[in-house]
């Protein structure tokens, strides 16, 4: 009985959805509202209005800056939730079960990863810094940085990577993206224009362009490095196991 009701409801919703799809304008039609108003504006005026030759970056950082700021805050909130539940790793005490098992990663794997991690981080930095003119940007580069540190941790163990990236180095960097966005936003308010305006009034054209460029660069770098460090911290919090938690801390 219940199943029949569920099936009937689903069929009803499906029929309504199919009917609504029939009412919609054809997909990819050049007369659709999104292709008439928004897309030509972005494509024609994106570079001068938003200051980035890659239209995607212009849209993400400028036209829809609030959206991106919310996204960055969401990632930061995810980190906060994970750390609130699982806690940070303890220096010198946290292990993973791979470290405890006693089987070390072989020399081949270690050498390969020692060769690969700098290459991956180099690629990520290229993606972050070149996001204005080529595909890519802060978030993608940050994910790649996080992946490279995950790779390092899998081969060399948690103690080694927490020694390389200690908490006092990670905690300031985690909030760097949100802080960079807010700083850029409030710079606009200080100059007397709206929140998240990159083009400052009352300056010469050259100075305003330069300031806009620097601000977008800072935000991109902030998103990139903060994203990477946030991924790393979430992974460290999830992977750690404190075998000797009940023992007193040794100095």
């Amino acid at each position, binding site marked *: 009985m219940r199943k029949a009701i569920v099936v009937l409801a689903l069929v009803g919703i499906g029929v309504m959805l199919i009917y609504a799809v029939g009412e919609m304008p054809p997909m990819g039609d050049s007369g659709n509202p999104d292709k008439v108003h928004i897309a030509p504006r972005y494509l024609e005026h994106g570079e001068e209005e938003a200051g980035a030759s890659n239209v995607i970056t212009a849209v993400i950082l400028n036209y829809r800056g609030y959206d991106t700021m919310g996204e960055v805050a969401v990632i930061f909130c995810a980190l906060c939730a994970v750390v609130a539940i699982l806690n940070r790793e303890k220096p010198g005490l946290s292990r993973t079960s791979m470290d405890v098992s006693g089987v070390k990663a072989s020399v081949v794997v270690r050498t390969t990863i020692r060769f690969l991690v700098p290459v991956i981080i180099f690629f990520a930095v290229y993606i972050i810094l070149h996001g204005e003119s080529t595909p890519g940007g802060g978030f993608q580069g940050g994910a790649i940085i*996080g992946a490279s540190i995950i790779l390092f941790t899998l081969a060399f163990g948690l103690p080694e990577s927490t020694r390389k990236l200690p908490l006092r180095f990670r905690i300031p960097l985690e909030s760097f993206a949100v802080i960079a966005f807010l700083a850029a936003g409030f710079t606009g308010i200080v100059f007397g224009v709206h929140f998240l305006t990159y083009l400052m009034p009352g300056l010469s054209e050259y100075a305003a362009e330069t300031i806009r460029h620097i601000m977008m660069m800072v935000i991109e770098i902030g998103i990139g490095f903060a994203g990477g460090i946030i991924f790393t911290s979430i*992974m460290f919090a999830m992977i750690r196991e404190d075998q000797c938690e009940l023992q007193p801390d040794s100095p």
Partner: protein
Amino acid sequence: MDWTLNLLLLMLLLATAISVIRIKDLLAAAVVFSAYSLVMAILWTQLRAPDLALTEAAVGAGVTTVLFIITIYRTVRKED
């Protein structure tokens, strides 16, 4: 010629998506989900969205899979 590759990729996408739901072994499901992300990344490049393809490949196939595998390792592997 262009649409044959797209059709193949879409069919592969459907197959991986359905098998992610059907597989009871969670570790295998995580691995298949990573394959789903890779197919999706190729489809994004076919749709001329390289930014999204980069994100999908790095986050979907890389980071999320590792987080899933860590979670499965710390909990249980079999569903039910």
